[in-house]
């Protein structure tokens, strides 16, 4: 087991955003978190990457309790996030953004290797190497966010809404790349509103509703679950 959340609760001021979330991600898996707006998907991601402190519960990563660990140290341990809204550094070029992804690493040769890998995964980024992040289209920024998250050589890649704001063809493409990244050995936990895509690509998935997990199963199971179909797949 690479990641385990044990009964996580999280507060925004007096509002409870997560009511005891428990989930696991195994080595080599793609796990999807689906749910409506405000269900707590992004909040769960923020708890894992350390952007928000949790009120109760435990986060175990790679056999180590990281519940109270600083966010920057979690990156060193192997957690990397592509945040909601992409979080591209607007004044940095594509290359500088990617270099920021390798901020915690020192080995220049390995970083160059990973730069090449990112450029192979996303040839578009190579074309735009010297363009500043703020001038790129939504799709390009999404690729950059994913590529940048890979630059820390993570064990676990957290992807928050990788398909948000993208054209249907690009959505296909970005999910293809996510599967490819996974096959190269990176475990992926992704949050999606596009439940169709997420469930058909993920090994397992959890359904979140108002801060609690209401269902879990393999991607295929949930894809054919009547209540999931009804609520998230837009077919009656």
């Amino acid at each position, binding site marked *: 087991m690479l990641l385990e959340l044990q009964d996580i609760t999280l507060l925004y001021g007096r509002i409870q955003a997560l009511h005891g979330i428990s989930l696991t991600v195994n080595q080599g898996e793609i796990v999807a978190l689906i749910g409506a707006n405000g269900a707590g998907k992004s909040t769960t991601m923020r708890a894992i990457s350390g952007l928000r402190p949790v009120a109760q519960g435990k986060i175990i990563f790679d056999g180590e309790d990281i519940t109270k660990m600083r966010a920057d140290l979690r990156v060193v341990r192997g957690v990397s996030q592509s945040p909601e809204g992409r979080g591209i550094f607007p004044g940095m070029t594509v290359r500088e953004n990617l270099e920021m992804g390798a901020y915690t690493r020192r080995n220049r040769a390995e970083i160059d290797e990973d730069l090449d890998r990112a450029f192979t995964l996303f040839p578009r980024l190579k074309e735009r190497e010297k363009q500043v992040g703020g*001038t790129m289209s939504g799709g390009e920024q999404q690729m950059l966010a994913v590529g940048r998250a890979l630059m820390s050589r993570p064990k676990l890649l957290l992807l928050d809404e990788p398909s948000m704001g993208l054209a249907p063809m690009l959505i296909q493409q970005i999910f293809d790349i996510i599967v490819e990244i996974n096959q190269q050995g990176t475990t992926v936990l992704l949050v999606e509103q596009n439940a169709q895509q997420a469930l058909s690509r993920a090994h397992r998935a959890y359904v979140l509703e108002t801060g609690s997990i209401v269902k879990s199963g393999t991607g295929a199971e949930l894809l054919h679950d009547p209540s999931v179909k009804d609520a998230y797949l837009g077919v009656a």
Partner: protein
Amino acid sequence: MSESVAATSAKKSWRGNGGVRGWYGRQSLVVRVVLGIVFAVLAVLLPYVGDVPVIGPQIITVGIDWPSALFNMSYYVLLALGLNVVVGFAGLLDLGYVGFFAVGAYTVALFTSPDSVLHTEWKWVAAIPVALAVTMVSGLILGWPTLRLRGDYLAIVTLGFAEIIRIFATSSETLRGDRGFSDLPHPPGDYSDGKAIFGVADATPYYWLGLAVIIVVIFAVRNLDRSRVGRSWLAIREDEEAAEIMGVRTIKYKLWAFAIGAFIGGLGGVMFAGQQGFMNSQTFQLQFSILVLAGVVMGGSGNIFGAILGGALISYIPDRLRGIEDPIWHTDLFGFRFAIFGAVIIAIMIFRPQGLIPSRRRAMELKDREKEVAPQ
């Protein structure tokens, strides 16, 4: 006709190639070093600019002697350089920067003035390390609890900090309020005939001292900006949350920015105390912080040379207005300094919204933020 076409296309490619800065960037190290030396020499010769025929008399101030005006510019530039680290590099809005200037100056006063309760009466030089250490620590003390705040909240807390320092100085017996500290010692050194270099009559040596400090600070700040620290600041400024998930320990680098900014502000206070010989709590008004911030923004936040230009202007413009009679009411134009100043700032913000010498990255960030405010 064809000539004008050629001229516009030449102009276009000049801009397209990055204008002056692009040209500068393409020059070899030798050319850049020579240019830097030329600028430094010109700055050293600035006290004698009045002797240049025709242009000289237009530049120098009338109502205040020119070397004093230059010294004023030098400590404003120092403050602008320090505030630029906090606001321009790390993107933290600090409205109470004068607080650090005050801490530096008061520490010097406490250790050197015969009025002080400490009765140490140290020399000016001896008080410098203590003063700088105290300002840096005050930066950390203010920063530690407040740097978890963002944007507007941080601005308000820093504003409060400067006011607390001023009010404390006004009402405290130790800091002597309006009575202030007198007989502060000047920097050391004598000419061969036994007269002190840093006297009361001529401010030129103080200006040169300030200039030397500024040059050292420029090098230090520039190297920091190009280091890992600078990269961390840049990331924090552009997107603090994204910086954190890249593994930047944001609180640490924000504290660094505050401490370094405080250090430079304290340096300004030390210089000020060494030249003035007297200071009291009225010296450290809130408008001082706002003025320096205006200088940084006006010059081009995030750009070292922008900060220098802005800092120089906020001191030069009011001083230049001194002793000039306005044609209608026949009073000193100095009285209208804030009105004129405001007009200048508005003009700059209309014609060059990123500042006189903008930072290219900051221009991009501002555009990005506009998008967030008004999404298309």
